[in-house]
């Protein structure tokens, strides 16, 4: 647990000291992870302020998070950080699926966006003492001669193959430059494995939702997953604790793809050709097999991560890879029954303003109206 105390007044120590988080900025608050994290942080009374920024409106109902609609302009973010004296920044914006946004937009977000967020925390009088950066296991890539378990010190053995992987490597490089330049800021980088869960939409959950799960002929790759709830808890963990460094976020257990398909109660469809899978990915996407480029090699060689370093800091996973797959399987069977019944949340600025600022809103005794 953290033992240090926030100094705030620009006291620049030589090294990062344990720092207790009081006021948090969540970037990408309208993405799935940003929203889930803000939601989770709201339940901690010791965190005074949560500010979320994004260029889109939030997709989750947040109660005390202040949303500011702002793009990746660093000057604006810097003003927010300074004005609200935010001591912790959680960067949860990273795009990790090349099918989720256009390549240019992904590059803009992952590389330029990261630089801007870092620039916003880099000023000499910045109140930021802690930075949490959500990265992805795509950092390691996926090749034939990979080790069976990547540890955090390993660099990828080959140059990135896809634009998305290149962007993630670039983004992490800017973060590590920032770490060197600002030794007084505790920087935590989390490299997340492929996420499964009932709520999140990832390339793997989409593939597993197909009636027959495509496999590459003659291959049965090792897959490691992490449950969505565990990712949220892993993002929360460095905010509440002192954990400088880079950590893999991956559940216990590496499964064979055929094993996963069995757990989901699906049937495999080994139709993808072993050679030229990448070249075929584009026409296949038209047919509904939405396999992003960075996943093609995973379907052949698989990937495993060593998750011990994060567990050594006291973090415990609630789900193993197997349990994450089972939880997705249950959801997939239930989904057709529930479809269309979920009330979708839409962000209405006026309503949110009213709920937060109006003196007429009755709040529990201990809760002060937020703001300044």
């Amino acid at each position, binding site marked *: 647990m953290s033992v240090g105390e926030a100094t705030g007044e620009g006291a620049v120590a030589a090294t990062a000291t344990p720092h207790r988080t009081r006021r948090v900025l969540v970037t990408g608050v309208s993405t799935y992870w940003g929203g889930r994290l803000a939601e989770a942080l709201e339940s901690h009374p010791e965190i005074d302020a949560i500010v979320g920024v994004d260029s889109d409106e939030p997709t989750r109902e947040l109660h005390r998070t202040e949303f500011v609609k702002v793009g990746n302009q660093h000057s604006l973010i810097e003003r927010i950080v300074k004005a609200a004296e935010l001591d912790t920044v959680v960067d949860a914006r990273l795009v990790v699926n090349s099918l989720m946004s256009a390549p240019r937009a992904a590059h803009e977000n992952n590389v330029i966006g990261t630089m801007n967020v870092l620039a916003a925390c880099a000023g000499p009088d910045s109140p930021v003492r802690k930075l949490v950066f959500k990265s992805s296991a795509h950092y390691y890539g996926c090749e034939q001669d990979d*080790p069976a378990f990547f540890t955090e010190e*390993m660099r990828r053995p080959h140059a990135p193959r896809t634009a998305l992987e290149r962007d993630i490597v670039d983004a992490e490089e800017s973060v*590590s430059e920032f770490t060197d330049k600002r030794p007084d800021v505790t920087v935590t980088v989390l490299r997340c494995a492929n996420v499964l869960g009932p709520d999140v939409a990832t390339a793997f959950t989409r593939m597993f939702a197909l009636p027959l799960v495509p496999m590459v002929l*003659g291959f049965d790759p090792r897959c490691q997953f992490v449950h969505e709830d565990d990712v949220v808890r892993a993002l929360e963990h460095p905010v509440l604790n002192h954990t*400088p460094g880079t950590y893999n976020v991956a559940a216990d257990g590496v499964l064979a793809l055929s094993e996963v398909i069995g757990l989901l109660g699906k049937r495999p469809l080994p139709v993808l050709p072993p050679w030229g899978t990448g070249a075929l990915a584009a026409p296949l996407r038209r047919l509904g097999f939405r396999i992003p480029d960075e996943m093609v090699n995973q379907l*052949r060689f698989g990937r*495993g991560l060593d998750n011990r370093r994060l567990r*050594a800091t006291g973090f415990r996973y609630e789900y193993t890879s197997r349990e994450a797959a089972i939880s997705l399987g249950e959801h997939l069977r239930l989904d057709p029954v529930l479809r269309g019944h979920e009330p979708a949340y839409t962000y209405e600025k006026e309503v949110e303003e009213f709920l937060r600022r109006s003196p007429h809103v009755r709040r529990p005794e201990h809760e002060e109206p937020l703001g300044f």
Partner: protein
Amino acid sequence: MAPDRTSLAGTPDTTPEAGGGVPALPGERARDLLPAIEPERTITDWGRSERVEGMLDRTLVDFFYRYWFRCDVEGIENLPAEGGALLVSNHSGALPPDAAVISKAIREEHPRARPLHITVEHFFKGYPGFSALIPKIGCVPAHPANVHRLLYDERQLVLVFPEGRKGTEKTYSERYKLRRFGRGGFVEAAARAEAKLSPVCVVGAEEAMPIFAQLNVLKRLTGLLYFPITPTFPWLGPVGMFTYLPAKFRIRFLEPIDTAALGDGEGLDTAQVQTVAHEVRARIQENLDEMVAARHSVWFG
């Protein structure tokens, strides 16, 4: 194409990264934090399948071990019953039967049998068919980090053929002549993992699948590691790769060699590593010569 890396000498990429200020976990702690084994699963984290391995073991491997090759095992008591151990053996045959036979010998003869992990080239991970099957029967790509995790963290048995592809490429006329043992990477791997080196000699594999020639043109065309001409391959097609002649097998486990004296981690003495590598090679060659000399018939032993 297959990356040309059979040696275990390469150090895992350990360039400390900026921001990765957390030191590596100490051994005991790292072992405590290994993921627990889920009893519901029949596949290990390395991709080893109890079901597939068991099925092959009861049928094909059992038949070859007992009736076809009639394996004789000597010195099984020399194999460490606990702790990590790196088994080092001579290698031969186009699709080498030696690894499977050593693995089976441990299962059958050793009082405290443990699964044996067989290191194979990265090539197999990228070749359709092999890629799905090879990990299921206990093979692991020969990456230094894989060997280290198995030996040091999981304290398992790992089998390595330091001759690598040079061993399986050699033709019948060169039988039982050990090739160069890489650059001593296997000694380094064992020393760094504080594991014992356990030399193993196999006699019979050279005659079970004699290779008369290697065809480089066809090797390139098929994308295989090599294209051997054996009594049955390519004449019988892919089946020919699995067709062995009924040579009599003898397996001898030699006394283990302690690598503790070599130091660990950074302070490895390269000269001593080379000395130990040569010593291991010499001991295997010596025992092979002795075993071949004692044998009256290739087929009946």
